[in-house]
């Protein structure tokens, strides 16, 4: 399989999977993160475990395709099928090493909006809301966002902070405001990977995906994007990563263009 034959979503899944460290307890969100967990578990993180807010813990990825985290293959063979509040208890205790959150809008400090575009009292777009996003953002040790890279999504100021990132970007903002976890570590987009300094602050461009350029990324970002000292090219999905992605999403439900 040639390495150039992958979709942007397949690349995002591969990049997201590399954020999972062996032994991590991962709070797995819907869509691409489910695949990222499966890929990591089959590669470099064989002792990772996944925690799903619906009320599940797993080691092995589900054998069958998942349209949602509550689909029957995700339950069969689970290590724990329980109440949501029990999964949240583990996260509130700091036991979740990594969470994934999808976002509609994000700002330079990683604050995410999945609730309202415009005035919440009369929004121009009503988005679905937090789900577990705010919980992951506030309680997990570190988290990563996946989103399409568009100017209207990477914005100077989000209309509504559903899931707080590094707040106003000042040092210690999260601790001062009582947020428990370390906040966003990276934003994985269709064009690039943005990373945050370890103790919070502003995102910087860490790597650009193959076939894209720094200028293109900046053009599609509403704020004046900071660059890392050395902006790398994002390593493309390996053959084994692609094979795993296609095993868990055989029809390309999540990873092929509509």
């Amino acid at each position, binding site marked *: 399989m040639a390495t150039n034959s992958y979709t942007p979503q397949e690349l995002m899944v591969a990049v997201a999977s590399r954020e999972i460290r062996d032994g991590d307890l991962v709070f797995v969100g*819907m869509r691409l993160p489910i695949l990222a967990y499966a890929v990591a578990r089959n590669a470099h993180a064989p002792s990772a475990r996944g925690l*799903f*807010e*619906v*009320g*599940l813990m797993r080691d092995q990825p589900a054998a069958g395709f998942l*349209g*949602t*985290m*509550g*689909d*029957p293959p995700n*339950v*069969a063979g689970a290590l724990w*099928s*329980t*109440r*949501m*509040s029990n999964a*949240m208890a583990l996260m*509130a205790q700091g036991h979740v090493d990594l969470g994934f959150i999808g976002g509609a809008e994000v700002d330079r400090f990683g604050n995410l909006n999945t*609730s309202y575009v415009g005035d*919440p009292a*009369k*929004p*121009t*777009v*009503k*988005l*679905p*809301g*937090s*789900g*577990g*996003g*705010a*919980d992951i*953002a*506030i*309680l997990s040790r570190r988290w990563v966002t996946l989103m399409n890279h568009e100017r209207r999504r990477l914005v100077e100021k989000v209309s*509504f*902070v*559903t*899931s*707080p990132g590094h*707040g106003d970007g000042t040092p210690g903002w*999260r601790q001062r*405001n*009582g*947020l*428990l976890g370390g906040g966003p570590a990276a934003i994985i987009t269709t064009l690039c990977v943005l990373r945050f300094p370890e103790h919070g602050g502003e995102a910087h461009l860490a790597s650009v995906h193959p076939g894209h350029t720094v200028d293109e990324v900046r053009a599609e970002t509403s704020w004046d994007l900071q660059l890392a000292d050395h902006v790398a090219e994002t390593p493309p999905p390996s053959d084994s990563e692609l094979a795993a992605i296609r095993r868990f999403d055989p029809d390309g*439900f999540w990873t092929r263009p509509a």
Partner: protein
Amino acid sequence: MSMAEAITRFVPDGSTVAIGTSLEPLIPFAAGHEIIRQQRRDLELVGPISDALFDQLIGAGCVRRVTAAWVGNVSEGLGHCYRRACEQDIPRALEVHDHSNFSISLALWAAAWNVPNLPTRTLLGSDILKTNPNLSVGFGLVHVGAVRPDVAVIHVQRADAMGRAHAWGPLGITEEAGLAADKVILTCEELVDVDITLSDPNRILLPETKVVAVVHEPGGAHPSPVQGHFKRDHGFYRDYAEQSRTAEGFAAWLKSWVLDVPDRATYLKRVDVDSLRIRHHEYSAPADYGDE
């Protein structure tokens, strides 16, 4: 009890209704459709995430307020009726009490334990604190106000006629919703003998003293999945998302799948049930309740 009777008697206009409390599985769509057919109005819907059912009830004009963490279509994205209601007051204005998944669970535990609120650290730093009047901040914690449903509608794999339900798979916020509610309506795949339910009292979901109706409604959760019975009907969710993009499209969908459908049995004749039915059985190891 029939679904029609259960909704007529126990879900009057203006009720606060917890429904779809296990997140993606076990969503009581049949009950929701009966609520729509009976033209209930001014409901407050309570749930964690809602996978299309809230969207349908909102589009049908049944809903005054949503108290939830997420409303949309889990595999497809946005809820178009929810958007139209919030953005354009179509078919009517909608009040939204935003939550996260954790905070709506705590709101129900507060009601279950009969306290005005429960504290948490989640939501600190989130604008959700600004839009939901039942959340407040003090002493460095968020205080989540109790949410007490008038009725919780819960779909389960099996129940007996006395109201003892067995459900399995992830349970989301079902237990706290049932305990917090004044009344519980059970809808079930199988209506079973008391010997089955009482053979495993640890699997009984809720105290029968809360249960006011047991409705035998096989397939009552379609298109959502039911462990051991049905897979999720992803295509049905996709079609719903496409057709509900416009108010006219939604009206046509609603007429076809709800208003012109007298009951669940008729509805299921139009679904490819065979392709969704789970045929590979995997039974739990028994627990020994022997006592002598």
